[in-house]
């Protein structure tokens, strides 16, 4: 039993931390705008390719390449947000535009990288380390560590700093926040930037473990929707346990039933559907329609 459980625990925890980044970024974004933004996933993909472009194609230092890539993601996220809120205020229009943008980016990268798959270099050497009897690549451990640090920083910011409180209040109730004189527009921009950073960092951390493809903009949503279904979007409390639930389940399937490799998304999807059927209102209350 423990021979299967150990890798699940180790990998599930390490990857779970990065999933939390993705889930939190998305929750923040949805919480404040109440509209789905499908370019969030595209930022994930763009960051991965940007790292490749700067580090491999241009030969920059890896850390510099990473920083530039994250910067690009933030700029792109802000640009899309500004453009779309100005020109497509209707939620339906907004959602449609964001998927078109995500597809545009997919096609763009399919055009630039017709070979399709590029391996994005990891940030550390690839000599494996033993944890709980499981040999793990240092890339994953570093990923987990960075994610943890970032999460702590984020938590401290939201819980303990005045501006963090402002952000949280605005995310929960923009109208009332505006009444109190909070510049809601500015807060929105900050949230967009922060969530872009979160998803970009997640890309930088996870992607070396996998391969970059232009279609990967969907990946963050696999995590996001399970989290949404379990805890509801805009509900921070359940975001973290839900993100771990996804990663543990995925790795349980991968290690328990090796022949199903490549079907993690299906598993996540079925978990989510099963959840809705059993707990229709979700644990956190997911906006059950009449």
């Amino acid at each position: 039993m423990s021979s299967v459980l150990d890798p699940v625990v180790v990998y599930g925890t390490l990857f779970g931390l990065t999933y939390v980044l993705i889930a939190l970024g998305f929750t923040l974004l949805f919480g404040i705008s109440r509209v789905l933004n499908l370019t969030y996933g595209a930022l994930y993909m763009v960051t991965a390719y940007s790292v490749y472009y700067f580090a491999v194609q241009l030969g920059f230092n890896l850390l510099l390449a990473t920083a530039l890539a994250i910067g690009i993601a933030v700029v792109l996220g802000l640009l899309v947000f500004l453009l779309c809120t100005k020109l497509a205020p209707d939620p339906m229009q907004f959602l449609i535009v964001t998927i078109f943008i995500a597809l545009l980016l997919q096609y763009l990268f399919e055009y630039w990288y017709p070979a399709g798959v590029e391996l994005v270099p990891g940030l550390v050497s690839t000599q494996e380390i033993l944890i709980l009897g499981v040999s793990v690549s240092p890339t994953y451990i570093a990923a987990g560590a960075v994610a943890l640090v970032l999460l702590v920083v984020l938590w401290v910011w939201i819980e303990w700093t005045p501006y963090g409180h402002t952000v949280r209040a605005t995310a929960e109730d923009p109208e009332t926040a505006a009444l109190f004189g909070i510049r809601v527009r500015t807060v929105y921009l900050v949230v967009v930037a922060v969530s872009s950073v979160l998803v970009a960092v997640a890309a930088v951390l996870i992607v070396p473990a996998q391969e970059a493809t232009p279609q990967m903009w969907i990946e963050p949503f696999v995590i996001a929707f399970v989290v949404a279904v379990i805890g509801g979007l805009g509900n921070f409390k359940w975001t973290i346990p839900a993100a771990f639930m996804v990663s543990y389940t995925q790795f349980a399937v991968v290690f328990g039933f090796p022949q199903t490799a490549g079907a993690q998304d299906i598993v996540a999807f079925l978990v989510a559907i099963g959840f809705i059927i059993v707990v229709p209102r979700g644990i956190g209350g997911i906006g059950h329609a009449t």
Partner: protein
Amino acid sequence: MLPEGGPRARRAASPLLRTARRTVLSPTYLFAIALIGFVFYAASGSPDSFFAYSMVLASIFITLALAWDFSSGLTGYLNFGLPFFFGLGAFGAGYLSWHGDRVVPELLVFGFAVGLFAGFLFSIPTLRLRGPYFSLLSLLLPIIGTDFVVAFWAQLHLPTEGYYSLPFLYTFWTPVVQSLSPLHLPIQYLATTNAGELLLLSIVNGVLLTGFLLLRGSHFGLVLRGIRDDEDALGSQGIWTFPYKVTAFTLSSGVAAYAGAAYATTVTYSGVDTFQFTFILFPVLIVILGGLGRLSGSVLAGYLVIYLYQYLQPVFSTATLIIFSSIAILLVLFVAGGLERPLRAFIQFMRTPEAG
């Protein structure tokens, strides 16, 4: 309570008849039907040409657009899972054809049925959630489809990552042509060329358009539109919206799957590429261009968009999709009402007499 309606009420025409009359006599509907007929007529002049094939492809996308517009366009619940049902229909047709000698009608009906069933199964848990959650879940469906086939095609005894050797769609007309041969009508080409495929697809599109418009004009359609405006307000006055949504999306999934089966028989292959997001990009683009929720507009928009794509594709190859997604973005951002408003403004402008 308020008194019952008197003799006046009983003499009023039945609502169904009134809706039917209103639908059929609407100029946009008549234009769309005439256009469908005209396109077929034009294509039958050169039945195997590039134009004819483009119109075949366009017709399939129009079917998808109609299905999407009827469900998502009316209710506001944006369904991005359309490619999944499209692919499901294609694979259903492929499966049936691979395991026996099948004629086209069987494949199309089977595809439709598979789509209905899958659509119903998917709708039940997901349509209890609000719009954004539903959209997010539907986004995952095409990926599920692709992953499933790629991961399990060997276990499922597929010949490759898909089925091949499906019968051609135009063989639908073979029995008809044969039984009418004593009359010596010049209709042989229907059973052997793209024009024949176009005829079948056009007839179905005409029927679908009519059916969807009738539904849209009925109380059922009114509720769907009400859902887009204010779903809770419907509830507070006694309407449980869930069965309406499920019906609309089940229907739409069935139609999308039929389109997939039809597509598979035009290319005689059903593969993983039928789950691509291209099969949501173009239908939504067509619907936006034709007017969200308007249905009839998708016909003209469909022919235009796909013909343009077919025309540009040899020139720009893989960059064509980049062009079209850019056009789609610009369209949504700047021309929210589709072509209708600028077109009307243009007509108005042309009609205005010169000053002075």
